[in-house]
């Protein structure tokens, strides 16, 4: 089997063993869901409901008239109790619709239809109506991505799942292979792309086999095995590995005739087209060395992460108490992360909701938490050797630390996608990703001031 990859990058420990064997399962309903009106890159939505309204699962409750945006839907039947700013995973407060969930409710039934009979415009309309965004984390509205200004010849389904710990895409590839392939075909149809490539890292041989069996004999579909290397699932690196095309700095994949979509997104597209089902739930991985019962869970959007953690037995060694309160003893759990360990966000409190882009909830024991101070750069060049964008993280960090943001940008800060490798390999533990974010902010502010 030939295995492809990109240049540089880093080999990370996988940590997938906690949850990769766990079939997708569901958890009990939460008492309350918090639906942020903005869960995507683009314009925020306006609430379509008022406090006191009864809402049904799947009902659209927020929308914007802007093109680059996606509507949001109630994920469960219930009553709107508040429309107010609530903390999101980034720590910022986001205007959200809070719904008190009816404890007696049935899974909604979605009318089936023949998705293969849908036209391109009908598919795109269904995707927009369903509120689908990139579910790998970036959360860019999918219907926008599928409206490229130039021809696309290849759709790449990003099935790398290169972040350690996360296994939800892997499980979906195994359990929903057919839906994934159908979703990918729908996406390809929208942009008239003749080729569909499933890019899978070879630490998921069962997924590669399942996909190969499913697409056998189909024209234009192929599975490409990829080396297990981070960040293989970054769009530009994935395109380089599978097609040997390089997206120029500051440009999008469509520049080289490619659109990349994640596994969960493709399945959501299938559900939107086949069942007219809006995006109201997603599969995520609850895991980490401090998780009592790691697993891959289908969770209603808006569910507070505290509820997800509690339903899976809480923290290892500290189950929920007699009053069913979640216990988070500091000697057992040191960090809670939303997303993957390389690009995810550490959480300060646990009432933040699961949203469309939430691929994981990680519980780290205190032993996994790195808290040493950073020292001066020793110019070891390990960051330079590993940077998948061929930048100079050492100089970016040095100049940003001095406040010379123009020079930091000169050494590549604006082309950084914050994969975190430079920090991972840095022997001086320098927070280079923070320096990059600061540089981007300062440069944007300087541009705005002009």
């Amino acid at each position, binding site marked *: 089997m030939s295995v492809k990859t990109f240049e540089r990058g880093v*080999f990370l420990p996988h940590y997938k063993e906690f949850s990769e064997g766990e079939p997708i399962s569901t958890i009990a309903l939460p008492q309350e869901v918090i639906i942020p009106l903005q869960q995507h890159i683009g314009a925020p939505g306006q609430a379509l409901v008022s406090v006191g309204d009864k809402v049904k699962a799947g009902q659209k409750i927020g929308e914007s008239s802007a093109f680059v945006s996606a509507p949001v839907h109630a994920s469960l039947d219930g009553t709107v109790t508040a429309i107010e700013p609530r903390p999101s995973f980034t720590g910022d407060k986001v205007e959200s619709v809070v719904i008190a969930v009816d404890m007696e409710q049935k899974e909604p039934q979605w009318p089936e239809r023949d998705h293969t009979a849908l036209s391109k415009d009908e598919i795109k309309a269904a995707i927009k109506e369903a509120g689908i965004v990139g579910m790998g984390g970036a959360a860019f509205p999918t219907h926008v991505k599928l409206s490229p200004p130039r021809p696309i010849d290849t759709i790449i389904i990003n099935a790398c799942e290169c972040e350690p710990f996360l296994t939800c895409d892997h499980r979906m590839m195994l359990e929903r292979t057919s839906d994934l392939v159908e979703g990918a075909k729908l996406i390809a149809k929208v942009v008239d792309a003749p080729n569909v490539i499933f890019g899978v890292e070879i630490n998921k041989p069962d997924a590669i086999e399942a996909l190969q069996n499913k697409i056998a004999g189909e024209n234009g579909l192929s599975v490409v095995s990829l080396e297990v290397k981070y960040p293989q699932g970054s769009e530009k690196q994935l395109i380089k590995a599978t097609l040997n095309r390089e997206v120029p700095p500051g440009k999008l994949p469509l520049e080289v005739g490619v659109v990349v979509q994640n596994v969960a997104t493709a399945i959501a597209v299938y559900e939107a087209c086949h069942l007219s089902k809006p995006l109201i739930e997603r599969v995520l991985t609850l895991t980490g060395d401090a998780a009592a019962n790691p697993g891959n869970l289908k969770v209603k959007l808006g569910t507070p992460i505290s509820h997800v953690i509690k339903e899976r037995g809480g923290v290892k060694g500290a189950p929920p108490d007699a009053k069913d309160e979640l216990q988070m003893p500091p000697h057992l759990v040191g960090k809670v992360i939303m997303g993957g360990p390389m690009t995810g966000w550490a959480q300060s409190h646990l009432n933040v909701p699961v949203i469309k882009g939430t691929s994981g909830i990680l519980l780290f024991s205190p032993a996994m938490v790195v808290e040493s101070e950073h020292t*001066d750069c020793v110019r070891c*060049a390990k960051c330079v050797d590993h940077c998948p964008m061929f930048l100079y993280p050492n100089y970016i960090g040095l100049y940003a630390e001095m406040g010379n943001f123009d020079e930091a940008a000169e050494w590549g800060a604006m082309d950084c996608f914050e994969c975190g490798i430079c920090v991972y390999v840095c022997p001086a533990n320098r927070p280079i990703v923070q320096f990059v974010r600061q540089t981007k902010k300062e440069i944007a502010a300087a541009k705005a001031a002009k």
Partner: protein
Amino acid sequence: MPGQDIQLAISSSPHLRSQETVPSAMKDVLIALLPVTLVSIYMYRFYAVFLIAVCMISAVLFELLFRKVMKKQATLYDCSALVTGLLLALCLRPGTSWWTAVLAAFFAVGIAKELMGGLGWNRFNPALFGLVAVTLLAPLYVGANPSFAPLRQYFGPLDVITQATPLALIKQGAFEQLSLSQMLIASPGGALGETSALALIIGGAYLLYKKQIRWHIPVSMIGTILVIATFWGNPLANIAAGIPLYHIFAGGVLLGAFFMATDWVTSPVTTKGQVIFGIAIGVLVMLFRKALGPTEGVAFSILIMNAFVPMIDRLTRRPKFGELPVKKEAVVPTKPSVSKST
């Protein structure tokens, strides 16, 4: 509300770290220096132990002193003072007086490192800076300046260079006295760190294996010296006499190539820059050897090139991902990947 009263660490991504730290890297360098240190102790016995102890202890003390005076946090845990001290000792000749060693450590750790801002900010390799400083000061002291006369009486001569070094022997055309195999395995003459080429090669291989250094600087530096030593004069006769190998095994070339020129802080971070840096050092070493006296050529060459590192980095910047045109193919025929992260 659940989960309100909790203490969780908040930090920016990424949330994973490799095991690599500055102290662990410095310890790798110390381990890599162990073979040559042992050979030098075997060769020079007490003289070697004495110099190594004086250099390492004074390097540590000067770091403590300078940081205390400058009101900075102590950084002994990073072990860089120990590395500098040991490297410095390996650059000195047996019989060097204790106070010469202390003075060299003062210049190395105090001036070249701490006054420049501490580890990471030093422009010049500290150990080589210390070595060169005392080398340059020696004539001043040993020379005619009468004000130093009492000092000289008290301390004795600044440096004891009595033994003919292999390099000096080459210069005199008397290199038959030392066989290549002797020089490779172990032979007295020169500094502590010049006693065994094999021990240095083992140390360098260890650093390469542990990925603490890359091959570019040692290979380009040694390769350049080999080429120039071969083609300077009659290539066939040179090869027949083994002169290129003498140039590699003698006079601190291997110590310089594996342990000094590859110093993280004072070498380029770009791949192209590292190759240019290595070649330039090799050229300078041979110029010094052919044109000037046979001593300290390697130290001077590396220090001179240290000064050019920021310029080299700037001029050899690689293009960013996607900046170069790629040969466009619709779907590239599958071939096993050869690229590796280094």
